[in-house]
């Protein structure tokens, strides 16, 4: 459907924002590009929209090369971060403008807008100016302007970042429902990993212009391809501690655990990744136990974050609401399936799936 082939984007000042990226996006898929600021996600989106020229590579939409075309002829609609509604036009005129400029006749425009405004529940304020609308309503109008054109592709540029937290959660759900309903292929850019996890069919995690991982939200969360992905996806971030693997035995400070699925790996220094929510106070049959010296507790309501030291390195655990004194020493247990192993360069070490299959 949408294919990016060896996409490179270098800015005039020599900064290479996108470094040779290739992705294939399927019909109707909701793709979320996620990464910290400066990772190139916006550059990719703007290149697809045609708002920025690409340096090399190719963009294809339905097997039609579009990167040489004008933005208007690409059959793409975009929802901007600050909505970019025309402030002097009414909601109706905002929705109609793109159609009018494409020579669509008045009756068709009217019936299309009527349909879209019903879907988005904005029919009541079609004759208002954007300034008289609330943030959520403006957001809907911005989506309406994209939908009304029936494009082949939707682009979203951090559309929820200007909304307050509760409205953001609400609109997130609406966007997801709407995308399912319309079944239009969508590319969504965000720096918010919660948005990425909840909305995406597939997440593309970017770091410094390079794809770190492409996968479903579950894959990205459970099998992060690198320490970067592991620390970016999931909140609070994963803990990393240096360890060593010798013939499948992981030596972590003074504990060790045998993981047969990693027995094929050569002896090496590794980074052991443990998510805060997987470090439990309850004892576990398999896996690692270690002690944590409590330094600070952050209550979150249903549970709490416990910050402390494990062998002089900072560690964060997510525990139920319990009272811990300062400097108290807790024993934390991590089941072996929740241990993430990364090599010294931060790449995930691959488990031998045959061994896992035999074990179960």
């Amino acid at each position, binding site marked *: 459907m949408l294919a990016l082939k060896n996409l490179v984007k270098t800015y005039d000042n020599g900064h290479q924002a996108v470094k040779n990226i290739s992705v294939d996006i399927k019909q109707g898929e909701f793709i979320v590009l996620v990464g910290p600021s400066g990772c190139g996600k916006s550059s990719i989106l703007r290149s697809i*929209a*045609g*708002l920025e020229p690409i340096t090399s590579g190719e963009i294809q939409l339905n097997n039609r090369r579009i990167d040489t075309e*004008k*933005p*208007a*002829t690409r059959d*793409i*609609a*975009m929802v*901007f*971060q*600050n909505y*970019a*509604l*025309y*402030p*002097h036009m009414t909601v109706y005129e905002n929705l109609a*403008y*793109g159609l009018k*400029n*494409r020579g669509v006749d008045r009756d068709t425009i009217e019936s299309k807008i009527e349909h879209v405004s019903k879907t988005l529940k904005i029919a009541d304020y079609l004759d208002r100016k954007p*300034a008289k609308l609330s943030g959520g309503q403006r957001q809907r109008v911005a989506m309406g*302007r994209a939908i009304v054109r029936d494009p082949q592709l939707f682009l979203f540029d951090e559309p929820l970042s200007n909304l307050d937290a509760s409205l953001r959660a609400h609109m997130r759900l609406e966007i997801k429902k709407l995308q399912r309903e319309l079944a239009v292929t969508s590319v969504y850019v965000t720096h918010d990993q919660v948005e990425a996890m909840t909305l995406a069919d597939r997440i593309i995690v970017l770091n410094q212009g390079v794809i770190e991982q492409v996968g479903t939200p579950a894959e990205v969360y459970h099998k992060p391809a690198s320490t970067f992905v592991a620390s970016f996806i999931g909140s609070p971030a994963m803990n990393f501690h240096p360890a060593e693997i010798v013939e499948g035995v992981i030596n972590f400070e003074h504990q060790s655990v045998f993981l047969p699925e990693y027995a094929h790996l050569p002896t090496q220094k590794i980074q052991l990744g443990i998510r805060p929510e997987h470090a439990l106070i309850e004892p576990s049959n398999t896996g690692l136990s270690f002690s944590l010296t409590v330094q600070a507790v952050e209550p979150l309501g249903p549970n709490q974050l416990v910050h402390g030291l494990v062998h002089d390195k900072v560690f964060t655990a997510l525990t139920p609401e319990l009272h811990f004194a300062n400097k108290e020493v807790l024993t934390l247990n991590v089941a072996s399936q929740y241990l993430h192993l990364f090599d010294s360069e931060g790449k995930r070490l691959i488990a031998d799936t045959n061994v896992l299959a035999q074990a179960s």
Partner: protein
Amino acid sequence: MKQNQWLDHVILILGALFMIIPIWLIFASSTHNPNTIISEGLQWLPGGNFTSVYSEVWNKSIGFSTDVNAKSMIINSMIMGLGFAIGKIIISMMAAYALVYFRMPFASLWFWLIFVTLLLPLEVRIIPSYEVVANLGMLNSFSGLILPLIASATATFFFRQFFRTIPNELLEAAQLDNAGPVRFFIDILLPLSKTMIAAIFIIMFVVGWNQYLWPIMMTTDESYNTIVMGIKQLLSDISQSSQPRYDQAFALVIFAMLPPILVVIIFQRWFVKGLVETEK
């Protein structure tokens, strides 16, 4: 707080009186018999000659060889003021549009070139300007009066600064909505600039209206006299006359002031309304 407000009002009222009293004196005096003004000085209360003096100044030629009266001079001034304001707005908006939205080579150099012309006021370049206008055969014509001064660095600068505050995403949204450069200018930029246009219009109309040196240089034909020139003419007439018509001179001053005042009042409302309503 209350005390402060009270003080603010006193200052405002004093300022307003300071500005209004001279005008009132002129207006009140203009309705008196010229002999009263000469013997008793400026008058605080209006006299009885209002209609006769004003209709005479409006319709009859005073102190000119040909048939030049307040009406014809106001029309000339109107043409100057409107021509100045509208022409300057059109030219400077287009210049600013090019400077802000088109990737021109040396864009900032062009901008600074335009901007430094602010350092050269009309008086400095009046001889070469005259030479150019004379060689083009545009002396004694409205195009000769208006066109040479129609480029405005000030207005270009204001529009440039204003366009730069318009979010770039609006341009991008318009691009996706299939609006080319001309459509974007007419459909988006022009309506958004309404308040800016009103502000520039006020300034430029008054500037055009008050031009004195330029029309004096460019026109020798009395039928092109503007009202500001007319006042001067009348004053020099008065100094030579045995029976100076100060009442007529004052009435002409009042006539000369009215149109700019109207323009300011009308456009100021629009200007303020626009400021209050638009939200970017």
